[in-house]
């Protein structure tokens, strides 16, 4: 039974997002705002970050005990000597998308990736994912020209014609669409997951040491978080309100648009069956193989069973 304990009885936990809080993160704030964490006896602080590397560093340094980590990141982090593992997978589909303009490169087909120039970040692993995806699809990855364009400059680079295509998480779609409309053209979105890329992306992760020391905390966190996700999918409007209460500078339409997109990544046949956050060992293994095949890894890649720990999902699956 949920206990509404006094503040001092709550266990303090810090959770690091993969980026600054945006609409895609509404679920975490919904869990917070609906009191799911408190019900579990947790006092959760959500902190922002600037991408995978920083989440891993936050967890490794115990600045955060839990984090929103992605599978490729976990592989790299373990190769770099940490013991960070996933306990739940939220983004069942990888959010990596390629955007182009309808009157420009207009990338709608995998084949078009050959010879394409793409604005991407030297600071992200996405270009390597795209190349792996091309290899998987029987294309020559070397033919992709990657230009390093920082995220804030990427939309401009596309709209001003500096580069014919850019990559972003799919959640950027609404904003880009608006920009394209201003430029009197329309946006073409190419989500690799829709064209055969099988790769788990973000989920809840923690260090093995923490998992071993506080298995109950992890379990409670996962349970509350998944309830937050369900709440958000069911009541996007209320979830957005929860987030806006805590995070400044977000517009409600933008949050709602992102929630709609995230839904595509989160609600799949698998999760409909096994519940939100669930994952399969075989897909983990496939993901590991994809990463080791395509991403430059320094150090030794871990074995697949080291990437995750089972048994932290709620006994009763939280189905969307």
């Amino acid at each position: 039974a949920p206990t509404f304990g006094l503040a001092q009885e709550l266990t303090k936990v810090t959770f690091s997002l993969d980026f600054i809080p945006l609409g895609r993160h509404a679920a975490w704030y919904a869990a917070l705002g609906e009191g799911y964490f408190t019900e579990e006896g947790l006092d959760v602080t959500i902190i922002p970050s600037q991408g995978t590397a920083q989440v891993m560093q936050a967890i490794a340094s115990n600045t955060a005990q839990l984090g929103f980590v992605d599978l490729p990141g976990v592989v790299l982090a373990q190769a770099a000597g940490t013991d960070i593992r996933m306990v739940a997978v939220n983004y069942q589909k990888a959010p990596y998308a390629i955007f182009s303009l309808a009157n420009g490169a207009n990338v709608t087909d995998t084949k078009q990736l050959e010879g394409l120039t793409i604005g991407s970040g030297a600071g992200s692993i996405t270009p390597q994912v795209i190349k792996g995806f091309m290899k998987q699809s029987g294309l020559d990855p070397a033919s992709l020209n990657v230009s390093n364009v920082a995220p804030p400059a990427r939309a401009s680079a596309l709209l001003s014609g500096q580069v014919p295509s850019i990559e972003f998480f799919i959640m950027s779609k609404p904003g880009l669409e608006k920009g394209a409309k201003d430029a009197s053209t329309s946006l073409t979105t190419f989500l690799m997951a829709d064209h055969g890329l099988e790769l788990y992306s973000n989920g809840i992760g923690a260090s093995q040491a923490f998992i071993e020391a506080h298995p109950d905390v992890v379990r409670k966190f996962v349970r509350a978080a998944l309830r937050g996700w369900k709440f958000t999918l069911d009541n996007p409007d209320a979830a957005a309100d929860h987030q806006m209460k805590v995070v400044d500078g977000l517009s409600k339409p933008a949050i709602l648009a992102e929630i709609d997109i995230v839904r595509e990544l989160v609600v799949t046949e698998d999760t409909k069956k096994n519940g939100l956050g669930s994952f399969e060992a075989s897909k983990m293994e496939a993901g590991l193989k994809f990463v080791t095949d395509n991403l430059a890894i320094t150090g030794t890649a871990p074995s697949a069973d080291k990437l995750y720990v089972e048994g932290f999902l709620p006994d009763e699956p939280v189905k969307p």
Partner: protein
Amino acid sequence: MILDRVFRAIYPLIGLALILAAWQAYTQFFAVNRIILPSPMDVLVASNDNFGLLLRHLWPTLLECVLGFMLAMAIGVPVAVAVANSQILNLTLYPVLIAMQSVPKVAVAPIILVWFGLGIESKLAIAFLVAFFPVVVDTATGLRATPKGLLELAQSLRASPLQVFWKVQFPSALPFVFAGAKVAVTLTVIGAVIGEFVGSNEGLGNLLLTANSQLNSPLAWAALVWLSLLGMGLFGAVALAERIAMPWAKNGGH
């Protein structure tokens, strides 16, 4: 004197008006996409619509800037004294200082977060790191430029090193110190923003990042404009302090 004051207010406005006009003309004639560069009008509207929001986020950034600046002065000036008065410390410390200066702060942010946490301390640390070097270099240069005769006067009176510093070197170096302070204070704005990028929940830098990520350019540029205005305000405050601190330098100005 009154006319002088009017001019002091009018000319900067002319300068700003010129930027605005150029900006408006550019966005208009080249029909620049709003995501790339919104027009000043868009920005003004966004600034007006989000006035409360911007004001709320101005405060933490201002605080970071001011405290970071004070930290940079409080530590930079003594370091400059050490470096200016001892050739050994000069040679030994400078590489350390340059290393601190020329390392991109964004890249060392993680370790700063580990050390200082997500609170204001980490932002102060970064603002300090960014602003520190000009203070040291300019102040040290100024201290070394102290007229030899005045040093000898103090020496002949057997002034203590502290007296030499406070009563001779420092006042004599004031123009240099203020030059360093002016550069430093505008740099703290950048430092605070970098600090906010790296990890924070508030501040104009944070707002900028959020707006940017939502491709809400007008709001992002509104934040940028506010940051510029913050920089100008801080610079103006230092310039004012200079005029007050150096009444003998009549044609003070910036």
